[in-house]
């Protein structure tokens, strides 16, 4: 681990919140990104973010300096994702005329719905597809879902994912394959 990181950890342990922030701000955007992809909601993502770093804060005293700090953070992040149950599970089904409203609401929370200009028909297809993808993702086991999210959307390497989840690379491969197979089955009419 980098010496500056060890120094920050020691300061943070003694109650220096500035040091704590400097320490975790190296990784927090990645954590938020993972969470946002995993739950597909900015509010839930922020909940996860907060839970992760509260756990980091409380766990800092017990953190062993010989382990990698970033691995530890991402391990906590994936754990929190795995056990997270969306409080609001809204938008289980996005009906077509609600779609615009949802976008507006989300935008006011600092979220942009990334989409290019589409024809009305294209928008309809996308809304339906999004809802179906979310459904299909939720039908995966939490482990499959987080593995797929980390790999497909975030591009983490298999060995990195294995480290985060404390499992073997073989397990990651197997679960990833199963996730892809199940998603394709669920979405076969679209692709």
């Amino acid at each position, binding site marked *: 681990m980098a010496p500056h990181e060890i120094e920050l950890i020691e300061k943070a342990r003694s109650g*220096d919140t500035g040091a704590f922030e400097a320490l975790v701000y190296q990784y927090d955007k990645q954590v938020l990104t993972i969470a946002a992809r995993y739950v*597909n909601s900015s509010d839930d993502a922020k909940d996860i973010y907060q839970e992760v770093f509260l756990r980091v804060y*409380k766990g800092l005293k017990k953190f062993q300096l010989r382990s990698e700090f970033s691995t530890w953070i991402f391990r906590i992040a994936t754990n929190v994702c795995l056990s997270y149950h969306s409080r609001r599970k809204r938008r289980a089904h996005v009906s077509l005329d609600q779609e615009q409203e949802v976008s507006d609401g989300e935008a006011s929370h600092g979220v942009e719905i990334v989409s290019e200009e589409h024809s009305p028909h294209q928008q309809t297809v996308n809304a339906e597809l999004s809802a179906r*993808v979310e459904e299909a993702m939720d039908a995966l086991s939490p482990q499959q879902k987080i593995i797929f999210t980390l790999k497909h959307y975030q591009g983490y390497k298999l060995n990195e994912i294995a480290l985060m989840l404390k499992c073997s690379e073989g397990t990651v491969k197997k679960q990833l394959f199963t996730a892809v197979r199940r998603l394709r089955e669920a979405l076969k009419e679209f692709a």
Partner: protein
Amino acid sequence: MNHKHIKELLPIFLYGDLSPDETAEVRQHLETCTECRGELESLKAFNAVLSGLPAVEVTGELLNEARQELRAALRRETVKQSLWERVAERAGKIFAPRYRFAFSAAAMLLAGVGIGYAIFYRTGFEQTKQNGMPLVSETSQNSRQSVNGGFLRGGTRTDNLHFLNLDPQSGEVEFTFDAVTPMRVKGNVNDEQVQKVMAHAIVNSDNPGVRLKTVSALAEQGEQLRDADPAVKSALITALKTDGNPGVRSEALRALMQMPFDKEIKEAVLFVLLHDKNSGMRVAAINSLELTSHEKRMSDADILRALKKKVQSDDTNYVRLQARTVLQEVSQ
């Protein structure tokens, strides 16, 4: 060639995560196999569809919101921690001398002094004079953000400590007390500092409701009480021997009987048997002794002597009978 095997490798192949050997194997197979090439194309199309969908984007604004909310949460956490530390520290300081007093004199405890007042004001006042530091909410001087600018500062009279709740599932206990504004701290009943506060409440609160709720909350912990802070045991013993409220004494006995039965607890139970004015308590003591005698298969000379004395001279008929029954069983 094994299509199934290759097909399983294809998603990983697309992600670029196969070993060089596996990659070579897949490439070679694809050159000759139309079926697997088709599979690869449809997988690519599938990936493209998924990647093209709108997603929650993590903007700088969202990240900032998350950071602000975390900062607020950490602030609450720090305040909560230091509150418990403070509360426990105060409780500890007062607890020791008062406990001795209560123990030796078996006297009524000072009434009319609110527990919060006792914890924060009396000792707090001295400290304020010494160094002018805030009483309850001290935070590390390194802390960049001031945790609670001005709230609960110097000499604050803190009053009205109330035991509110115990969630038997999670072991969360909750107290409220008034400082400048009413405050509420929550902690786990298994936490050492929380237990010190509870111990303090048992011995020092002038409100029998607070004492009863606190003792009951502990009794509800069952087996977990075995690892309780020593202050808890002392407080329960004091309550058992001296609390003016029989309900509190009875719950204290129930709680103590879930701890390892040792000399101190034995003496306390014998004290109740010999001196408690409430015959129900004396019977409860006899039953507790019977229970431990069964469990430990022991016939302790002190216990036998006390039971004999009860058989001969307790002024309640039922107690004499109960003592006789248990004495017979125990001495077999």
